[in-house]
């Protein structure tokens, strides 16, 4: 396969994947708020309305439960809908159709029916307050039958969306608002990214820092900060939250001997505890700690938002603590014990 790359915005990576899959599979269609002539809330469907028209780029009212229900029903009847829920917080309104119907359909019908739908949504804090900032992917990871993926780069956005649109079961694909401004290189050749595969973004010897989505950038920044102090931090990007790539995660922690998990969601019943438990089931317990957003709703007040959400300084402090180096003074940290 050619290794040639082309640079593009995050939204362009998404629209390319959707365009290619819609071209290849006439049963794929998109529904959601502003996905038609407007081109998507983040312009991630720019140009597709012109190509595929109103039948396959369907605008819906502000009615997430209905959109999710229509998608689940269409998926069960042989279509491959991509339903767009602009903010992940509003997926809650559509959980019944997604969780009780789409995710369970395969089990309820002894495999005779499946619901190959994709929910595309956006997580994360960016000045929009308590009901537009949440990261609830950990809730979704616990649903049998549901696949959950979250890219951290345009290349993975492209590749994961392609795989999602070929998957035979419901998939929740999660973008992050703060990732959109950053362009990235994407393979020129078609390059689906398989589910269930984590990626080592930075190699290290002392601590494995496991994270996903926008927090990969925060993790890399923190790893850079502690490098000068002699702490070698490996950064592992989950990409796929369900299924988890326990082999890659376990191998990394077996090598480094320590684990720090980082997520923008809550730590209680979070992605990190699941990652840690699954790794330790395989290789035995290791020193670890976890970082997430502080246990409060994320405010639209920028000072409070920044105080809640993990930043590189907080992650670096946890890395120092875990690596056995002395703590230096830093901002508001309530580092949880292992």
């Amino acid at each position: 396969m050619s290794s040639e790359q082309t640079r593009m915005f995050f939204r362009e990576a998404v629209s390319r994947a959707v365009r290619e899959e819609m071209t290849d599979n006439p049963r794929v269609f998109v529904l959601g708020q502003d996905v038609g002539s407007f081109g998507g809330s983040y312009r991630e469907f720019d140009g597709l309305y012109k190509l595929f028209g109103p039948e396959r780029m369907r605008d819906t009212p502000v009615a997430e439960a209905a959109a999710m229900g229509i998608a689940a029903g269409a998926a069960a009847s042989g279509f491959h809908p991509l339903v767009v829920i602009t903010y992940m917080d509003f997926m809650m309104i559509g959980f019944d159709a997604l969780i009780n119907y789409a995710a369970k359909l395969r089990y309820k019908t002894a495999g005779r029916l499946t619901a190959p739908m994709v929910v595309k949504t956006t997580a994360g804090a960016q000045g929009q307050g308590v009901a537009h900032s949440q990261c609830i992917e950990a809730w979704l990871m616990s649903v049998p039958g549901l696949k959950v993926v979250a890219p951290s780069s345009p290349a993975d956005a492209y590749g994961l969306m392609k795989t999602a649109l070929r998957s035979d079961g419901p998939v929740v694909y999660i973008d992050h608002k703060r990732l959109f401004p950053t362009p990235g290189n994407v393979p020129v050749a078609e390059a689906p990214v398989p589910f269930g595969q984590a990626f080592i973004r930075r190699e290290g010897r002392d601590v494995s820092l496991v994270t996903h989505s926008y927090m990969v950038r925060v993790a890399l920044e923190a790893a850079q900060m502690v490098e000068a102090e002699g702490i070698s931090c490996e950064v592992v990007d989950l990409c796929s939250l369900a299924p988890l790539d326990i082999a890659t995660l376990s191998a990394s922690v077996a090598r480094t001997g320590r684990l720090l998990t980082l997520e923008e969601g809550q730590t209680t019943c979070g992605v990190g505890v699941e990652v840690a438990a699954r790794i330790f089931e395989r290789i035995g317990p290791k020193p670890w700690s976890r970082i997430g957003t502080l246990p409060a709703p994320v405010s639209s007040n920028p000072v409070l938002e920044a105080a809640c959400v993990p930043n590189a300084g907080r992650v670096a402090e946890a890395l120092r603590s875990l690596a056995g180096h002395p703590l230096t003074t830093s901002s508001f940290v309530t580092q949880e014990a292992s």
Partner: protein
Amino acid sequence: MIYQLSVPAAVPGVEEIRILEWQGEPGTAFASGDLIVELETHKAVVEVRAGQAGVLRTLLADAGDWLAVGLPLALFSDDADEALPDPALASDELVVEFDVT
């Protein structure tokens, strides 16, 4: 006098832009308020307008190129026949205004 036009930090959070279209070529004279170049971010187009009169001398990046915020886009001078520095760098920034749409 020689001036440098750099990528303005027009949209919060944006570290890199793509050049959409130049509205002139080396030799083009711009009056204050004239559109010089359109830059593309993930969701907006930034129209960069001259905040002072000047002559476009050298393009340092072409349409379709990606450039980080703060990096030089072009050189301008007060007069069309002023000698350009070598290497092509200027200490003074061209005064610009920009609209984000």
